[in-house]
């Protein structure tokens, strides 16, 4: 697997998409920091980018890479290699190169800006960590989608739909449920609802840093427990890990069963 990862990774590092992605983040970081110079605002903008754009790029890029590297996959399948290691290798190659573009693209301007001795460092690392997790989650989802759909158009459509659902529609349904049942105690439901969706979960993780004063305004005991202690952080991290692991298992299982 590591060898395939290596080849996928270097293949991607040479493709112009990685540069486009890297350049985008670099530009974003530079713009945010040097034209705005308000670090807190930069962090909020970054949060929006991370919870919306990263999943989108992760899914689209993942699906695109899968379809575009069909030749490579076929070549590898013709070799005596384990199937799961072929797909996992490619997956980690894609997710790794996307993460690297993100970390370098945003990290370089922040380091130049003097992040290392600023108090926003913790927040920046949190953003990077959620960004990397989301990249791994959504690339894995993309590989699953592509493995199940031989038809490219269908695959792309589904990828966008999955993103749209998790990024927007889910929250709409969620909010509607909350307002419809507002006569009942909802603090458990609202916590569970937000922990189940990786985008919401990342948002909550960042909110724990950004908006803790507002979150503590709510009376529910479970809320307090979740947001007030490290328990929230622990649960969120565990869920995030689960969100990475489950689609990866999906890749392994489907790749074992699939005909090529």
């Amino acid at each position, binding site marked *: 697997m590591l060898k395939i990862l290596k080849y996928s990774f270097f293949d991607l590092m040479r493709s112009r998409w990685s540069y486009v992605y890297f350049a985008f983040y670099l530009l974003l970081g530079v713009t945010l920091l040097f034209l705005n110079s308000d670090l807190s605002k930069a962090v909020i903008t970054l949060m929006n980018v991370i919870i919306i754009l990263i999943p989108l790029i992760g899914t689209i890029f993942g699906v695109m890479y899968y379809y575009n590297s069909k030749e490579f996959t*076929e*070549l590898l399948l*013709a*070799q005596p290699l384990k199937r799961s290691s072929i797909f996992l290798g490619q997956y980690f190659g894609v997710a790794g190169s996307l993460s690297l573009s993100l970390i370098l693209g945003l990290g370089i301007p922040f380091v130049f800006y003097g992040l290392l001795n600023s108090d926003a460092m913790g927040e920046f690392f949190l953003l990077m960590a959620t960004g990397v997790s989301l990249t791994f989650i959504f690339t894995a989802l993309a590989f699953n989608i592509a493995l199940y759909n031989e038809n490219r158009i269908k695959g792309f459509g589904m990828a966008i739909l999955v993103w749209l659902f998790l990024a927007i529609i889910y929250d709409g349904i969620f909010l509607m449920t909350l307002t419809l049942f507002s006569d009942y105690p909802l603090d458990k439901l609202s916590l569970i609802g937000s922990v189940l969706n990786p985008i919401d979960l990342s948002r909550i993780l960042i909110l724990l840093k950004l908006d803790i004063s507002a979150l503590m305004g709510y009376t529910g005991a479970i809320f307090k427990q979740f947001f007030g202690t490290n328990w929230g952080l622990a649960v969120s991290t565990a869920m995030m890990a689960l969100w990475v692991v489950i689609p990866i298992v999906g890749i392994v299982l489907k790749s074992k069963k699939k*005909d090529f």
Partner: protein
Amino acid sequence: MVTITNLHKKFGKNEVLRGVDLNIDQGGIFAILGPNGSGKTTLIKCILGMVLPDAGSISVFDKNIKKNPDYRHKIDYLPQIANFPGNLKVRELIKMIKDLRKPTTEDTRLIELFKLEPFLDKKLGNLSGGTKQKVNIVLTFMFDSPLIILDEPTTGLDPMSLIRLKELIHQEKNKGKTILITSHIMGFVEEVSNEIVFILEGNIYFKGTIPELKEKTGQPDFEHAIASILKENHA
């Protein structure tokens, strides 16, 4: 060498293989023939483990392939369409495949044989179909395995390269290897193969030597013999 019993495979509603039984002995060149969509490639992919059969069993080197995935290290496979990652250079591709499978020095001889030196530093995306096929052939033959499976090996080859390929196949056969070939070029099949397997609508229609086939169909030459089978079954 390869034993297939009662092999079934469906893709959706399309029943591609309907109870194939086939036994291929060691040594010699076997051609798998049949009209388009008869299941040749599916059969080969089943042998390679790339397609998982719905029913039936396959043994390669006397071991059921389901439980012993290691057999694939002893097979060299030439895929039908030579698709390669466009970003890679030929040299890098060969290096990569060696890295993934095992080290070998055969590649230099094969590169020389197919006159590929001028292309070594070109990206695969920029190569013509025939050149890509040559690269494909190099990748397949460089590992010296006892079983070789070639899916449409002649695609896009110029006459010179075709001759070299035939020579190569003969050399390998003379080393005592088993070679499975699918091809649409009847002349090529007639020239190289010892025995043919004719697949029709997911079943083995005929297995034997070319003279036997001619005798069975009552046709004087190979191409007509094949054509008559097809005509008979479509009428």
